[in-house]
């Protein structure tokens, strides 16, 4: 830094601070012209500010390093910290089903083909993220459109494998878990009614 020697709480010059903040906020590398335009200054001043930051964020000095990449500059975590970052962010995770995913999957399994709005009505809450995850994991797939134009879903072979089922006829009989087995109506109607009752609580 260009500050006089031995100054403890030396401040980074304003332009370098601005450039630092912009690099920090941006997910992508920023070019000198981009930085100059944002800071409303000349490119020469930006180059000087980058040189200053380059010293502060030189490899091995801090946990963050300044890199020149793809015609621009970017801040990145120092490779020496990668092990800790891996422990925090990328612990391998076994794909298990959350309660919301299990419910959505059960609805698709027993009522297929079924549309997303219907799933949402039965669950009483949005099923978008659960549906997306199940699609991604290959447990459900698209099955054409309903007569009303809504996209429908069905389970996949992958689903049968995960649950160790030969075919859909092997799905367990719901009667075992039915809270009111005396009800005669069809499963779909009963689920829709219960879902609407749950969501309807809001309107009360």
């Amino acid at each position, binding site marked *: 830094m260009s500050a006089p020697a031995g100054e403890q709480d030396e401040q980074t010059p304003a332009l370098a601070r601005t450039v630092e903040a912009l690099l920090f906020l941006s997910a992508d590398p920023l070019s000198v012209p981009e930085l100059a335009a944002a800071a409303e200054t000349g490119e020469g001043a930006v180059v000087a500010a980058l040189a200053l930051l380059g010293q502060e964020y030189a490899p091995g000095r801090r946990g963050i390093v300044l890199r020149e990449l793809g015609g621009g500059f970017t801040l990145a975590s120092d490779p020496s910290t990668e092990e800790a970052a891996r422990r925090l962010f990328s612990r*391998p995770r076994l794909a298990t*089903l959350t309660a919301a995913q299990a419910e959505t999957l059960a609805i698709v399994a027993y009522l297929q083909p079924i549309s997303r*709005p219907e799933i949402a009505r039965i669950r009483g809450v949005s099923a978008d993220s659960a549906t997306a995850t199940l699609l991604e994991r290959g447990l459900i797939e698209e099955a054409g459109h309903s007569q009303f134009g809504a996209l429908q879903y069905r389970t996949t072979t992958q689903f049968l494998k995960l*649950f160790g089922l030969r075919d859909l006829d092997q799905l*367990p009989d*719901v009667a075992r878990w039915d809270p009111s087995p005396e009800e005669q109506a069809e499963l779909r109607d009963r689920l829709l009614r*219960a879902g*609407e009752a749950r969501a309807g*609580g809001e309107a009360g």
Partner: protein
Amino acid sequence: MSLASLEIDLDVFSGPFDLLLTLVLREEVDLLEVPLAEIVLTYLDHLEQRGELDLEAATEFIVLIAALLELKSRLMLSGEEEELLDIEPEQAAEELLARMLDAARYRAAAGHLRALLAAEEGVRFRAAPLPLALRRRIVPAAEGSERPELLGEAIGRLLAMPPKINLRHIGSPRVSVAERLAHLRGLLRRGAFSFDEAVRGADRMTIAVTLFALLELYKLGEASWEQRESFGEIAVSATATSPEALAPPAARLAG
């Protein structure tokens, strides 16, 4: 308050708004006979004439009119035996007061939040995706590792009806909007129907709640209706975008 200068001209009462309020609370004017919509219209005219919006007064008006609406709807909905019909003017005044205080309290808290937000002006956070090397790895589960019972259990949970709603402050309504919503949706699934059909044999309260549920369906875009002559039959039908194509509000929000 500038509301005092709001002159109301109704069949049952003519004079300043705050006097009407007082007379309603003292039961000298029957709230059931006060067309609240006309008061709102008068207020809107009043605003237009003034050409400026006094937020304080507007908020106060909204709180008061909302309190009146609730009182009125309680009077309309409660059965003859309801003790709410005997509500003392003092009680009603207390109720209005409590409501005004509650609203004022959170209005002030809202002001505090806005000040906090303003103080954070210019603070931004980094929102970059993790470097590719650090993205979470997901190990697929082994075949046959999930129990099929999991699915049956989930259906069992979804079949459970929620406990009946008990609106303690209205006493015990025998019918909920949720029930009537489900009832109307059931009829819609079969096709068009008339409102009379939907409430055949129902008591006054159920009819009122059913009408409320119908308004809700209309708001959600699931149903529309047609009445060719006043007091004539109301024909209810599913809209072009039928119920199956429509998600409940929650689904739309999350999108």
